[in-house]
């Protein structure tokens, strides 16, 4: 039951330390690293709020242990936009975040960080998704405010913005 040493990269920064094996990745990110953008909802893999990227793929942080990120790379919502803090401007946001802002793709915002991480991976694989594909892509996330309609619009808008960035 002793702590295990891990070496990992989180939002591009190297992290080395020891963690207890039973520590969930979600609690490690929030409690040990202060990355509280990763939200904890159901803690059994249903709600999607804690979704982060593990070596580029979206995963539920509540269904992994911190020891398992040894030698791997994690990206949380804090890593999406390079700028952060109180003087953050809309223009500094990641295009996906801007799209959610523009289209009112959130209300209380609890589910948003997880959705953003899923969408980041989804749009890399599928840069021009249909509405149906968007609905399928976000089906692993529960949102109790929006009714999802504006989230779908936000993802479609994000796809446009990302294409513009590349063009």
């Amino acid at each position, binding site marked *: 039951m002793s702590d295990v040493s891990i070496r990992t990269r989180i939002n591009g920064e190297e992290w080395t330390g020891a963690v207890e094996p*039973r520590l969930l990745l979600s609690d490690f990110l929030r409690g040990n690293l202060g990355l509280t953008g990763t939200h904890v909802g159901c803690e*059994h893999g249903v709600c999607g709020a804690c979704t982060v990227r*593990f070596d580029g793929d979206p*995963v539920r942080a509540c269904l992994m*242990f911190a020891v*398992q990120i*040894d030698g791997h790379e994690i990206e949380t919502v804090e890593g999406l936009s390079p700028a952060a803090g109180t003087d953050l401007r809309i223009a500094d946001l990641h295009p996906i975040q801007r799209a959610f802002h523009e289209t009112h793709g959130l209300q209380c915002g609890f589910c948003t960080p997880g959705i953003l991480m899923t969408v980041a991976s989804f749009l890399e694989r599928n840069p021009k998704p249909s509405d149906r594909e968007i609905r*399928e892509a976000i089906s*692993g996330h529960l949102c109790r405010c929006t009714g999802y309609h504006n989230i779908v619009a936000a993802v479609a808008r994000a796809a446009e913005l990302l294409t513009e960035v590349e063009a």
Partner: protein
Amino acid sequence: MKPARFDYVAPTNLDDALSALAAGGGEARALAGGQSLVPMLNFRLGGPATLVDLNAVDELAFVEPTEEGGLRLGAMARQQTLEHDPLVRIRAPLLAEAAPWIAHAQIRSRGTIGGSLAHADPAAELPALLMVLGAQARVARAARGSESGARIERASSLCDLYLGPFFTSLEADEILTEVEIPGLRVGEGTAFAELARRRGDYAIVGVAVRVRLGADGLCEDAAISLINAGPTPCLAEDAAAALLGEVPTPAAIANAAEIASLQCSPAADMHGSVAYRRHLVRVLTNRVLLRARGRARERVV
């Protein structure tokens, strides 16, 4: 909602993993993708003393073609591989077709083929899909006591693996290491359908089928498997047998679907009654058999 304490080992090869599991003496559990095991640990439903993490056992993470035109899938191959790997699409189109229905993208990125098979959830897609394809599982354990050699391996048909809900014939020191799927044969077609409230949710009912037609148009082989229509993943054997030697006309297919519906043993829950699930078995079996028949006809030489 936090797991109880456990010891953690992360072996990097299969033999070390098998030894660690054997050393646990029934108190150790293998951790594959963890998409079912970790929620159970979070709920504290069963607390193993040791978790043997298989995620660094690279030799179990593979998708390989076989010489017979089939596929070998390593236990630690991720479920998302089924969705994105072109080899799977060509050699086991049923798996590629059904992959988007296996939980959500965030689960498939982590969830494994072996983990789903060994978890034995009657509502899971993979056991039923592999069963209908006639897959064989390979199972390994470390040698016990007087046995010679380091590792003992055995083969198991998927049907022999399942004894009850969440209950398999795997021993506490055994790991399901891979499954082998036979290649699609001439005149063979497969299809899958599922009803779920949202894409990625547990199936209310799902059906996977495989049919093979001869040059004369008669059905030479058929298999039908049902998801969440009984205590274990199961084949509807009588329904499939009713098609053998017959021309699969809409009437013959409707008859097979009726048999599947009558003989399955679904349970009721908040998503549907027994009668509703039987209805779904009939409708979906009918639908996928028609689709598989069309695909089989395209492959008749």
